[in-house]
């Protein structure tokens, strides 16, 4: 028997002594049943919000950017704040798929599928904002540097905004491929259980997957290549978003720590959104044995880690602003903390730096209700972070005669609410049509992480196996099979 050696102090990742068949049953069944009342209600509300958002977007396109309350001083407001917020939220999916895979964090299998889906939906919402911000959206095609009849008129390769186009489109493509590749074996599982038109649809989606050794081999190679591509993307996308600000000479924007600090913040907000969604999803779909309290605790640890990284960055910025001896930089931070928008800065500091510190307590990390509330706090805090960076830095610049204030029009608010609607419409469809937890991957780890194999309640024969390994009776070989 080749059995992974797992220390009994580790918490099992799959509860309920699942057999392979039970795993299939548990995870496939939500796609096979008629949706419940909660789902239908959620879906209707989401559609309504999405429709409202689309109306606001159409009004903006029809009448122009004048529908927003931007002014000559504050050229970026809720639009770019929302753009960065949504892009950041997407990062948890990529981190889980790529970085946690490299670090062999097995708990990723409980949430990777949903987090990757969330990435794709969040990027869709994010992408909307720069496009409608162009004003004349029918000219959006001009952002692509294709051989053209424009003569010498090319895109500005020196602009980080163009780098954004490349970074985000690559990010979207790779995330989509990664997500779909993982879904193929699971679609095949659903197909094999389905009948009629459902069977036809899932057969198409599964692309003829039979589970042959050759299929698995190709699947693993492709997954590895995509993970390799996704790893730099975790860093690059939000790095380039941070360049949008940091390459400028605007105090509060131009600071070298921005790239890694934006990435940490993005992961922070992404995990908060994963928690918000998965705490509801696991409850509604009855997946508590796959997305366990242990999973929530692990995610909360990422929250306290990335929240603290963000906190270190905030304080570093604040300190270096003083240290720089550069009066404009000093003023920018003074104005952030004590100027007319002090409440936004206070909200950001409270939600992003102070509240995550509760998760130093194991008890609170494992408290599902508390985690849910805190995840909402972080979602709000990270929105305020972008508002603070964008609006507060812009509203009082070098020239006091052009200082200004800004509050959004109802259309700007409507578009933001609309993207939340779009996001939830897509997510709710996703939980109905695809397995929310990666079936094949759970089956892959269950022998090492199921509660019958490891932990304190493991079956006696697996406890004996571990003790054999410990006493040297069972040598698990070293370099003999690789």
């Amino acid at each position, binding site marked *: 028997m080749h059995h*992974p*050696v*797992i*220390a*009994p*102090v*580790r918490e099992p990742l799959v509860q309920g002594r699942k057999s392979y068949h039970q795993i299939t049953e548990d995870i496939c069944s939500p796609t096979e049943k008629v949706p419940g009342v909660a789902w239908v209600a959620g879906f209707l509300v989401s559609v309504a919000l999405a429709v409202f958002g689309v109306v606001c977007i159409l009004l903006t396109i029809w009448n122009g950017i004048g529908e927003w309350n931007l002014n000559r001083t504050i050229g970026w407001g809720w639009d770019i704040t929302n753009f960065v917020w949504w892009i950041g939220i997407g990062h948890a999916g990529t981190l889980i798929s790529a970085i946690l895979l*490299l*670090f*062999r964090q097995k708990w990723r299998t409980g949430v990777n599928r949903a987090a990757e889906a969330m990435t794709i939906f969040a990027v869709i919402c994010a992408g909307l904002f720069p496009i409608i911000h162009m004003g004349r959206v029918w000219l959006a095609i001009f952002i692509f540097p294709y051989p053209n009849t424009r003569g010498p008129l090319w895109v500005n390769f020196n602009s980080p905004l163009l780098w954004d186009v490349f970074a985000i489109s690559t990010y979207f493509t790779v995330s989509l491929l990664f997500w779909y590749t993982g879904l193929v074996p699971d679609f095949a599982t659903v197909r094999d259980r389905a009948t009629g038109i459902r069977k036809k649809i899932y057969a198409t989606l599964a692309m003829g997957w039979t589970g042959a050794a050759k299929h698995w081999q190709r699947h693993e190679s492709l997954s590895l290549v995509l993970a390799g591509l996704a790893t730099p993307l975790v*860093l690059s996308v939000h*790095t380039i978003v941070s*360049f949008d600000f*940091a*390459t*400028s*000479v605007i105090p509060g924007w*131009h*600071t*070298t*720590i*921005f*790239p*890694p600090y934006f990435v940490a913040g993005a992961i922070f907000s992404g995990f908060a959104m994963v928690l918000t969604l998965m705490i509801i999803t696991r409850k509604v779909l009855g997946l508590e044995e796959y997305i366990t309290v242990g999973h929530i605790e692990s995610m909360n*640890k990422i929250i306290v880690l990335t929240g*603290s*990284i963000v906190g*270190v*960055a905030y*304080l*570093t*910025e604040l300190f*270096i602003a*003083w*240290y*720089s*001896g*550069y009066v404009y930089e000093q003023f920018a931070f003074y104005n952030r903390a004590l100027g007319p928008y002090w409440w936004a800065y206070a909200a950001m500091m409270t939600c992003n730096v102070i509240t995550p510190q509760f998760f*130093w307590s194991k008890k609170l990390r494992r408290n599902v209700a508390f985690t849910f509330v805190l995840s909402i706090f972080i979602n709000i805090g990270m929105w305020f972070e972008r508002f603070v960076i964008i609006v507060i830095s812009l509203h009082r610049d070098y020239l006091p005669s052009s200082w200004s204030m800004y509050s959004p029009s109802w259309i700007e608010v409507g578009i933001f609410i609309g993207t939340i609607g779009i996001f939830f419409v897509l997510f709710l469809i996703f939980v109905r049509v695809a397995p929310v937890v990666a079936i094949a991957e759970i089956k892959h780890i269950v022998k090492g992480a199921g509660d019958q194999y490891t932990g304190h309640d493991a079956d006696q024969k697996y406890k004996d196996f*571990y003790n054999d*390994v*410990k006493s040297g009776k069972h040598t*698990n070989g*070293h*370099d003999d099979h*690789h």
Partner: protein
Amino acid sequence: MEQQFTFTGKQKTFFLALMALGAICLVLTYIGDTATPHHERFWTNFLHNSVFFTGISFIGLYWLAAHTIGYSGWHIGFKRIVEAMTLFLPIGLILLLVIVAGLYGGWHHLYHWAQEGITDPTHPNYDKIIAGKSGLLNKTTYTAVTVFVLLAWAAIAYFMRRASVAEDTEGGLKNYKKLKLWAAILLPVGAFSSAFCIWLWVMSIDSHWYSTMFAWYTSASWLVSAMCILTLVILYLRSQGYMGHLNKHHLHDLGKYIFAFSIFWTYVWFSQFMLIWYANVGEETIYFKNRMDHFPVLFYGNILINFVLPFFVLIRNSTKWKAGSLTFIAVVVLFGHWIDFFQMIKPSIWAGLKHHAEHAAHDAGHHGPEIADFMMGFHFPGLLEVGTFLGFLGLFLYFVFSRLAKASLVPVNDPYLYESLNHRA
């Protein structure tokens, strides 16, 4: 499972010989240096190596804490080596106390902000910008931060080591929990305190210049260096018949670490450089202008040796676990990051000397030494610098090896030990 390392006489002699070489080089640098007014070559060498090796020791502790908190299993098989690396911290404190003593004794002119009258508006040395920063840049703060922070790190390293060794005899989960507690304390404390240290020790040499990325950039450099030393010590111990319980997957993962964090270092290096270059604010660009114009070999060589080389060598699968390629790249990259710290310190001091000499030439009556456009030991590490490096390396390894001999090489009662022994990719 217990494995006892013996620190042989031969090894001791070798490390002592390295230390002697380093001491001779330091003396020669001190007395032989006529090109700089205040033995700057000697003092920069001393600061450079002290910061480099103290930082490696600290980041080893950070690495250990992160793995402890993160439920890591694979590293247990060699965690005693990392522990031994962290026990160098008290020596790091002593080394930096020499710099502190020099600060008070006026032995060196490493820090422009430490000059007399720099904050006094009536004094000819008055510097308005430095006066504005004097809340941080003063001798008392420098001393206090250096002493308290290093003591705190050394104390945590000591407590973690004590709990780890106690686990060998006591068993149970009591010490495992203690380790987790210390690790949790170190992570936030270390993150803040290391930034203050690096600002004071290195960034403040360019007293006017600032970069929010600087602390993270130097930490990345330390981390890669620590991984290289760790890998080299493991490979050496394996060649001596120890560490047979590690398999190629452990080495492969160490190779991945060097690969990944070399890229991470490049990422933070590039982000810092590109943002300053692009925004083109004079107060910031001067840092890179000096390096690109007057130190091109160091500036571009830094990228070649710390990014291009490890990237292309380690991108292959097998080079990440084969002893030959791993030894080669670990040696090169360790030296590369030593060069990285060299280019953080030396060009700044040289530019200060040059600036001062030019001013002195204008003022009649003042005749400092002429500052050449190429100075061995500043524009390029000379034999004395290499010898000094080997001396400090000898000191570091002497401590690591002597601490290794004090406990079993295998933490026999660690709850994750058997995972580590059966580590698979």
